[in-house]
């Protein structure tokens, strides 16, 4: 998986948990919370959906890595690739 593909995975999840938001111009280097109406429960949704849809676990200490699309891609892409290497 590329980092761009990883960002799309995250955006697909955000589209479901924040259905009123326009995601066409999300800036990858800006915190998601600073450009979208997302609260702490929504971030728990992102964690849950990564777990449910992709079997990716994000420990609480790493939640900060989900702050922006860029940080998501940096953090999650190796996890996705490690998972696909295993399977």
């Amino acid at each position, binding site marked *: 998986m590329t980092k761009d593909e990883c960002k799309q995975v995250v955006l697909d999840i955000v589209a479901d948990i924040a259905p009123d938001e326009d995601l066409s111009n999300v800036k990858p280097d800006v915190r998601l919370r600073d450009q979208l*109406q997302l609260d702490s*429960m929504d971030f728990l*949704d992102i964690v*849950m959906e990564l777990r449910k849809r992709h079997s990716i676990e994000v420990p609480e200490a790493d939640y900060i890595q989900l702050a922006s699309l860029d940080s998501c891609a940096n953090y999650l892409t190796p996890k996705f690739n490690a998972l696909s290497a295993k399977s």
Partner: protein
Amino acid sequence: MKASRIVITGVGLTAPNGNSLAEFRANLLKGVAGIERIEIRYMGQQLAGVCHYDPLRHQTKKEVRVGTRAGSISVYCAREAIADSKVDWAAQPKDRVGIYIGCTEHGNVETENEIYNISKFNYDTKFWSHYHNPRTVANNPAGEASLNLGVTGPAYTIGAACAAGNLGLIHAAQMLRLGEVDFALCGGVSESIHTFGIFAGFKSQNALATHADPHKASRPFDKARNGIVVSEGGCLYTLERLEDAQARGAKIYGEIAGYHVNSDASDYVLPNPVRQAECVRASIRRAGLEPKDIHIVNTHATATPLGDIQECEAIRAVFGEGCPETSINNTKSYIGHCMGAAGALELAGNLPSFDDLTVHPTINVDDLDPACALPGLVLNQPRKVAKVDTILNNSFGMLGINSTLIVKRFAP
């Protein structure tokens, strides 16, 4: 201390056959029921009353996703009631508004959904939703309304089985009289059709209605009645002290004249006609009236073989033969049993009688059960009457809770 007079100044509702009072009333007079078949988890197709309001009229997509169906119904009804009351909502001090919502049950829907969800993950509870607790707390329906409306006054639910709709109004009247709030949103809501447990429970009790024609399935007082049609719905009112309503020139639908709540203390599920009659009598006494002064009695009857007979026994004991101006009807024959919303919705369906002097009938009575034959029972066709100054609304619930509410025509 002289009690303040409490008046109804707005109505917001969603029922299986209407999403406003005007639509609901028109269908009650036209004999239009609102029952359909829906898929219930583990049980297949079942009869149910489903509301078809637009949740996005007053909520964002995210509010609908995060919240509960009961919360959504509360928001819809509250917003519609406020609009109907024509109160200047922006100027209304939100810390002086109370939200009091009756519920039969709350939390079953989300709990069942989550258990079903984790069943897909080998019952691993790490897949259990973090929304479970805010969705299942008993105050959820009122809390969601407070969030949507920015109400910072008291907002909570009142658990009273199927008597709950009346209890919402009664409690609001009490809080207004105590001066705890200046403006109340009150009534009842139900999301019960989204839980298989309530259907399965009634089925195990042999109390779940069946019929080839969904619209004929809910038939209180008919000899062939065979149980309850489970429905969802909601109805919230705006209640105010008379002086406040008059000061702003509000339309007044009617005045809370009397009420009573009591308990059977006799059985988990079987009604007790003696206690029901006591409840009705006490409400009439509190209103300063006599049985002959009641012009419409809206029954609770749910179309169970025994329950209908017992309520009729209670009504017969109170009204007997000496109340020629008393008409008796039932609204569940159109919409099924809206549980916590039933009392509030059924009252709303009768309020326009003050203006049109017409009593909506009980429909689906093809063969009246002689044990349910009451003088004044309005069957299958609306009845024009000379006078409607009082409406008495019965709502009873499991564990033996009885409630009766009387609303009278407003006269300054």
